[in-house]
């Protein structure tokens, strides 16, 4: 007997057994199916609460986000002030340059861009 015939015979035997279940077993299987369906119908009403729960959740989250944004607004200025401290420190160094009495150096800084351009251009000009 090849594999196909063996499988066919096994399948036939299993089908026969599935069909030949005792009335008692069939009754218990039907009861199990009924219990499963009953549990589904008991659970079904719960789903009606889902939209309300979802809406409440959304309102709570939205309120939280708005409250958070509003409460964060006054803190923005100090945060900006803290963030700009290095710039202020840099600005405070400007008078040092002014007080250096080295006006030529300041001129040099101002003309840095020109010197850079000159350095780039001269080799081509020469």
């Amino acid at each position, binding site marked *: 007997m090849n594999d196909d015939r063996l499988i066919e*015979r096994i399948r036939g035997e299993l089908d026969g057994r599935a069909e030949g279940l005792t009335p008692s077993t069939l009754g*218990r299987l039907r009861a199990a199916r009924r219990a499963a369906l009953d549990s589904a119908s008991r659970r079904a009403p719960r789903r009606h609460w889902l939209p309300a729960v979802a809406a409440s959740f959304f309102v709570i989250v939205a309120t939280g986000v708005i409250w958070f944004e509003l409460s964060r607004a006054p803190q923005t200025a100090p945060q900006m002030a803290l963030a700009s401290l290095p710039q202020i420190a840099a600005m405070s160094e400007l008078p040092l340059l002014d007080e250096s009495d080295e006006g030529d150096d300041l001129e040099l800084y101002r003309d840095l861009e020109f010197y850079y351009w000159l350095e780039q251009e001269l080799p081509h000009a020469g």
Partner: protein
Amino acid sequence: MERRAFRFARVATGNDDDALEIVQEAMLKLVQHYAQSDAAEWPALFHRILQSRIRDGYRRSAVRNRLRVWFGGGDEEDDPLQNQPDHHGQGPLQQLQNERFGGALEQALRALPNRQQQAFLLRAWEGLSVEETARAMGCSAGSVKTHYSRAIQSLRQRLEDFTA
């Protein structure tokens, strides 16, 4: 569907009560978790749940058997012919042969490792493809092919007397 499911579980567990419990749990889980799924997916989902429950039951029964051996009472032998269905409308000889084959098949299937048993029943009896069987068993298609092939080999050896 529940008849075949019951036979699946019956082969795996070896007794009606455990098999009924597994089928009932599988039905409950299907209804509770997948009632909103597409109806076309229900058979595959049910098989997946059923196979998972059978595996759980298999583990529980292995623990129970070990305990029974440790604490005595392990010599109760399940008679495979005890729950054989009646084959009405057949001659006595044919009926006897069918019963013998049925008993031998039951024993041969029960002797298979759980995964081979599942692969064989899903593929050969339920007619699922390799991919569907893999999904139901939660393993790769390659594993299904291996389990199935070994199951056939083992069944052929055990049912040798009936395959001549």
